[in-house]
């Protein structure tokens, strides 16, 4: 056995927009162990429920993470609505689903860009982020915010989208779809990317299951879990099939995200066609009394918001189990045995979102 050395990776590192620290134990160029240290983004926002009333806590819940912001606020208000037994207007459910899919697409494009950058494909990074700006423009036009929208509230949504704007969004997505195909051909069929990713960082479906992988990390290993299949929001009226790949390597996880972009476009298309008329919010009185586990599918996997209230304006407990947190044990397994130069690529394939996982 050769001598072991430890290389610190992070918290400040060029491939990571966010701080996480890994101690990589190396034998020559091979990683034999990875010891994660987290806590650089811990703000302790769950305790703020004691200081904020439950309708205004939506803004805090949204700021758990700036990438998956909309879906966090959606999962939180869903939980409150379930406890209080509120029947949210249909149109609000469809609008939430549309915005949720928009944020999923912008998150996946952001990831594809960062992923290309970690492999040294600077121009692909720039192109992915150029396409992402189209989505952010639509988000800004309909909600008023680019990455933090603040449009979800208990009992519905704050803004409606006019039928003309919906048509315009649909047309925009059709144009985007063509450009996306060109971009994703690079990720899916380029020989140098395939050479770099195929067989790298393999996660078997047994390991993925027992280590608790969720989202694209699990779906890349052949496990068909997607919270959208449970039919929250308007998903019970939408036909869609989760994207599942079976190889379990970095290429499979990349392919899952690439193909999900088209699933999202299809879901938005169906939502716009089936969009019912009516109000987008409702009045309510009282406060939540009871507890509920609210589950939703984020770009990175399943998120669980646990909410417990006792009939007062401040809820008792809010606890979030985020997808990246459960994806860290699979990541540590993935890192064992890879070359040091592949570490940034492997770390990125679980799409780490530290802001979410530490709150």
């Amino acid at each position, binding site marked *: 056995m050769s001598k072991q050395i430890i290389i610190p990776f992070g918290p*400040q590192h060029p491939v990571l927009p966010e*701080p996480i620290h890994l101690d990589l134990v190396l034998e020559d160029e091979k990683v034999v162990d990875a010891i994660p240290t987290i806590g*650089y983004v*811990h703000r302790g926002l769950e305790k703020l429920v004691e200081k904020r009333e439950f309708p205004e806590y939506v803004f805090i819940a949204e700021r758990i993470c*700036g990438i998956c912001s909309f879906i966090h606020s959606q999962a939180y208000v869903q939980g409150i609505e379930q406890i209080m037994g509120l029947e949210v207007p249909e149109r609000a459910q469809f609008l939430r689903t549309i915005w949720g899919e928009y944020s999923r697409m912008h998150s996946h494009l952001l990831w594809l860009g960062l992923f290309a950058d970690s492999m040294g494909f600077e121009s692909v990074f720039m192109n992915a*982020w150029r396409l992402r*700006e189209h989505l952010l423009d639509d988000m800004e036009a309909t909600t008023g915010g680019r*990455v933090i929208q603040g449009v979800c509230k208990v009992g519905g949504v704050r803004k409606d989208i006019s039928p003309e704007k919906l048509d315009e969004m649909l047309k925009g997505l059709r144009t985007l779809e063509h450009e996306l195909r060109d971009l994703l051909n690079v990720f899916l069929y380029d020989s140098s990317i395939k050479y770099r990713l195929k067989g790298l960082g393999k996660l078997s479906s047994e390991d993925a299951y027992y280590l608790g992988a969720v989202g694209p990390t699990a779906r890349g290993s052949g496990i068909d879990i997607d919270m959208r299949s449970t039919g929250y929001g308007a998903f019970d009226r939408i036909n869609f099939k989760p994207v599942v790949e079976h190889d379990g390597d970095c290429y499979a996880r990349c392919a899952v995200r690439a193909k999900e972009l088209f699933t999202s476009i299809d879901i938005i298309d169906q939502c716009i066609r089936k969009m019912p008329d009516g109000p987008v919010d409702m009045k309510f009185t009282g406060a939540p009394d009871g507890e509920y586990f609210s589950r939703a599918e984020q770009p990175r996997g399943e998120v669980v918001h646990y909410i417990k209230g006792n009939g007062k304006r401040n809820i008792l407990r809010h606890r979030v189990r985020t997808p990246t947190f459960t994806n860290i044990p699979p990541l540590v397994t993935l890192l064992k045995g890879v070359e040091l130069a592949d570490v940034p690529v492997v770390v990125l394939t679980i799409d780490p979102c530290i802001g979410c996982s530490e709150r």
Partner: protein
Amino acid sequence: MTYLAKSPWLIHYDASSCNGCDIEVLACLTPMYDVERFGIINTGNPKHADVFVVTGGVNELNRAVIKNIYDQMVEPKVVVAVGICACSGGVFRECYNISGGIDKLIPVDVYVPGCAARPESIIDGIVTALGILEEKRKNMTNVPQKSADNSASHNQNNQSAGGTQ
């Protein structure tokens, strides 16, 4: 921006931000906003950087990291606090783990408020910081040192070259 004699490089660190401002900082580098037209490059090495862009409200674990990065940067340097969390703590001001603002720890030159700060305002903040950086650099050449005369004449040459182009 004719007075800019050099290409300022920036280093970005996320000090307990929600990510919103961080992806907007990255969006500044991409074709839509493109800060590279000012000669700005995002670097990972504190020793290469002139501008320190910090987001977030600084939690306990991050204090040492920020101090470390700031101390490793060579003079002259400017600090830009991006986002309302970096300015004052923002919505997380009352969290038990948040110090509330970068200026509690290191001197800040430019504040860019907003949640999340828009790319336009971030670019505006960084360009303002470049003016301050230039100011600091000029003041530095007045400090008596071994190569003061050489560097001053060097700067003048650069500026006149920039003017004629």
